[in-house]
Each structure stands twice: as structure tokens, then as C-alpha cells.
């Protein structure tokens, strides 16, 4: 279980101090699939980075299964079980997909085990396992490899920042299946996804709407989804494809 208590964060914006996150408190329970949505610029990605330790909040406290991790580094949080999939995955000259999956797994993963993670994200493993994670890969391929690294970590709390961005419609269903399998595989796992996507919102246990640094709505899917359909917070797959 992940608890955020009174989290605040502001950043310098052309000389002016802009509040990005304003006093957010949330409890993200075990075995929950939670989607954070809301308009662009509302603070969603910043909140995800605060959870992973990439951004340090100005105020507030973060607890993982009761342990205060507010002062913990990115590395320490990763080792405690927080996994993070970047919205824009990073490229590495020289590091192969296999290297990255082995780093993620924290052990000398066998090639066949590494391949199984790639198959889960819809990539033909033998074509990719020895490829460098460099500019020769398309945005969609990188995105799937990014998700595979989080799968290989088997995190207690998995945070995905707009996982659907850059992937095609075929792999969209694949993505939904990945989330479902992740949730089934570990009953203690919390999955937190930043997304506007209606089909992802549709499988959420809980939906949180973030706007202007505040939580404006929070509740079960059945409570929240009808309120936000046809708004910027919930776009259909067809609209995305446009």
C-alpha cells in the first residue's frame, strides 16, 4: 500500500513560482488498479515522478506499506519495490534489450526468460533480444520494451506514465491484457497508471482525476467514469488514433 500525505511541489516557471502539486493526499491500496487522469498540465506525471523519487516534493510524506520513504533515493525506492515506466523511454547506445531486462530483473536472467517478457509486450523476442536500445528502435518498440523492464522487476507498486502513448491499436488490447495479468500474478501489487484512455479507465478499480495540482474527483470506476466520459480526461481509442 502506498500513502501520499499532503504532498506539495512547485517549480520555477520563467522566474515565477508555479505550484504543480497542491496538498495531495491519497491512499493507493494493495491489489488495486488505479488510474490517474485529468487535463494536461494538471500534475499527473509530476506526481508519478514524486512516487518514484525522481522529483522531490517540497512538503508531505510518502509511505510504502507503512514505511516512510520520503527521503529515500530513486535506487532505494526501486529496491523497495517501486517500478516506473517512463512516458518517453530512454535510448542507450550499446546496451541491448537483454542487458536492460537483466538489469531490471536484478539477476542473470536466461535468454528464454528474457524473451518471455518481450513476448508479453507483443514483440517477437528473437528479433529484439540482442538489439541495442538505440535510435534504430521506433517509439512504439521502445515503449513496449519499457513496459517489459517493469514486468521484469516484479514491483510491489508499478507506476506507468501514459503507457498507451506511441503504441498502435493492435498492441492496445495487449497492454490491457498485460495489466490484467500483472494484477492477477500478485495479489499484493498496486498498479498505478497515468492515462486519459477510456479503455484503460474502463478496467480501473479506482479513478482519480487531477486538475490544477488538486484531486478533483476520486472514487470507484462506476462512480467516476460516467462523470468524465467525453471530457479531456477520457478519450476514446478512435480519437487517440486520429
Amino acid at each position, binding site marked *: 500500500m502506498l500513502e501520499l500525505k499532503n504532498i506539495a511541489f512547485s517549480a520555477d516557471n520563467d522566474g515565477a513560482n508555479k505550484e504543480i502539486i497542491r496538498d495531495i493526499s491519497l491512499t493507493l491500496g494493495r491489489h488495486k488498479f488505479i488510474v490517474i487522469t485529468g487535463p494536461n498540465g494538471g500534475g499527473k506525471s509530476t506526481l508519478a515522478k514524486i512516487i*518514484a523519487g525522481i522529483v522531490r516534493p517540497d512538503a508531505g510524506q510518502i509511505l510504502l506499506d507503512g514505511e516512510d520513504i520520503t527521503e529515500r533515493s530513486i535506487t532505494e525506492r526501486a529496491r523497495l519495490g517501486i517500478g516506473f515506466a*517512463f512516458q518517453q523511454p530512454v535510448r542507450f547506445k550499446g546496451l541491448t534489450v537483454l542487458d536492460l531486462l537483466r538489469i531490471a530483473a536484478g539477476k542473470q536472467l536466461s535468454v528464454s526468460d528474457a524473451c518471455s517478457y518481450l513476448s508479453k509486450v507483443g514483440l517477437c523476442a528473437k528479433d529484439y533480444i540482442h538489439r541495442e536500445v538505440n535510435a534504430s528502435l521506433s517509439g512504439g518498440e521502445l515503449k513496449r520494451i519499457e513496459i517489459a523492464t517493469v514486468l521484469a522487476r516484479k514491483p510491489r507498486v508499478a507506476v506507468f506514465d501514459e503507457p498507451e502513448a506511441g503504441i498502435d491499436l493492435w498492441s492496445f488490447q495487449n497492454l490491457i491484457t498485460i495489466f490484467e495479468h500483472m494484477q492477477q500474478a500478485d495479489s499484493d501489487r498496486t498498479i498505478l497508471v497515468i492515462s486519459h484512455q477510456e479503455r484503460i479507465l474502463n478496467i480501473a478499480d479506482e479513478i482519480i482525476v487531477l486538475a490544477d495540482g488538486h484531486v478533483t474527483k476520486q472514487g470507484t470506476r462506476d462512480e467516476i467514469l460516467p462523470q468524465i466520459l467525453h471530457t479531456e480526461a477520457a478519450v476514446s481509442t478512435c480519437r487517440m488514433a486520429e
Partner: protein
Amino acid sequence: MVKMDPVQLRLLREVADLHDVPEGAYNFRANGTSVGRSTTANIDIQSKTDVSGIDIRIKPGTKHESVHIPVVLSESGLKETVYNDFYIGEDSDVLIVAGCGIDNCGSQDSEHDGVHRFFVGKNAHIRYVEKHYGSGDGNGKRILNPVTEVYMEEGSSAEMEMVQIKGVDSTQRTTVAELAAGARLVVRERLMTHGSQNAESVYKVTLNGDGSSADVVSRSVARDTSYQKFDACILGNAACSGHTECDSIIMDAGRILAVPSLEANNIDAALVHEAAIGKIAGEQLVKLMTLGLTEAEAEEQIINGFLK
């Protein structure tokens, strides 16, 4: 029988991945003298009579054979220039493993300047691997100044892997190649400098024949206060294609000067150069840290991958 002390054997492992005497032809040189040699029916090795060094003659049509000619120096203050000539017969296909390891625990500089000349016959193919390594905690410098000359006849090809990852204080590397029609040269250089080391690598590749091609790629990392200069020039005198690339990471107060250059003397010469220098991207470190590595471990992984 090859006789070497433990330091020399360690150097041998570093530069030639050798744990034992290799199969095929070899010549081991330690502290200025030959300490072991073997020839085969197709590969002959003879000492030069005028200068220090050897002639390696590979018969035409020799396939799937190898030649190892590692050099180790473990005596402080030793300076030598060695001339090794390789005559590679037509239609042969061989692996040549060279390399030099210096261990200098003394106060005097140790230096090995190896001049390698390759005469690659028609349609022959060679793969050449050269590793340089230095160790020892003395004040004396470890200096390596290799000169590589490659003369390639029609339809021949050469893949050259040159690696210097650790411990060499000063290097002036010069590589010259001349290619006839249809010849192909591929060079992969990997270099890491640290401390106050200085490394310069100069290439001059001349494409003289139609259909000849060259691909010269250097990846390097300069750490601490070290300095590197990469100066690669490809000349196109025929309908040919050439590509040179220098890709470098700078760390700490490391400095790199990249000077790629091209000269086209024929309307059908297609030449390209690329050069990129930069520090490790912060987002790369962050990504690996979210996978559980410390910042130092992440840095090491990125560099190891880059220089792999």
C-alpha cells in the same frame, strides 16, 4: 615452450584472452625477446634480420587459421620499436590477434611502439584484433604508439578491432590504409582514458579503386582529466563509399577533440562523417536507477555497454 612469469601471464590474459598457448601460429614477445613461437604448414613466422620484429607469411588459400602475436612488458624503463609485416596470400581467410600489455611498477617510462604492416592479397579476408592494456603503480609511464598500415588488393576485406580500455598513459596511434577496387575496410576502435592520460588516434584511409569502401567508427570515453584526439580522414579517389564516425562520452574534466575530415577527388565518391561528444544523459542514469542500480552502477553499465 613458452616461459613467462605471473605478471606476464596476467598481461597476456588481458590483451589476448589467452590462458594457455593458442592453437595455430603464434609468436610471444616478452621484455624485448621472443619467448615462444609456433608455425603451421600455411603460416610461417621469421625474425627480421635488419630491425627488431617478424615477418608473417600466410599462404594463398589459407582458411580458418589464426596467428597470435601478443607482446608483454613487465620491466620498467624498457623502450622498443618493433616492425611486424604480414603478407596475406590471395583468397585466404585468417584471424590475427595482436596486442600489448605493459606493467610498470618502476619509476622509468616503459614504451612499446609496434609498427604493423599488412599486405592483404586479392580476395583475402582478415580479422585483426588488437588490445592494449597497462597496469602497475610505479611513477614510470606506460606508453604505446602503434602504427598500422594496411595495403589492400582488389576484392580483399579487413575487419579491424582496436581496443584500449585501461592503464595506458600515452598513446599516439596512426592507421594508414590504401584500398584497391572492391576492397572493404571496417574499423571499430574503442578507447577509454582516465587519470591524466593522453590518447591520439589518427586515420588516413585512401580509397583508390572503384567499389572500394571504408567504415571507420570510434567509440570513446574520456574520464578524469584525460585528453583524446580523434583525427580521421577518408580520401575518395574513385567511385567509392566511405563513412567515419566518432562517438564519445566525456566525464569529469575529460576533454576530446574530434576532427573528422573527408576529401573527394572523384565525382562518384560518396563520403560521410559523423561526430558526437557529450556527457552521459541524466535521464539514462535515472532510468537505470529506477531499475535498482546506484548512480555509480548505472554509470558503469552505460559505459560498459557503450564500449562493448
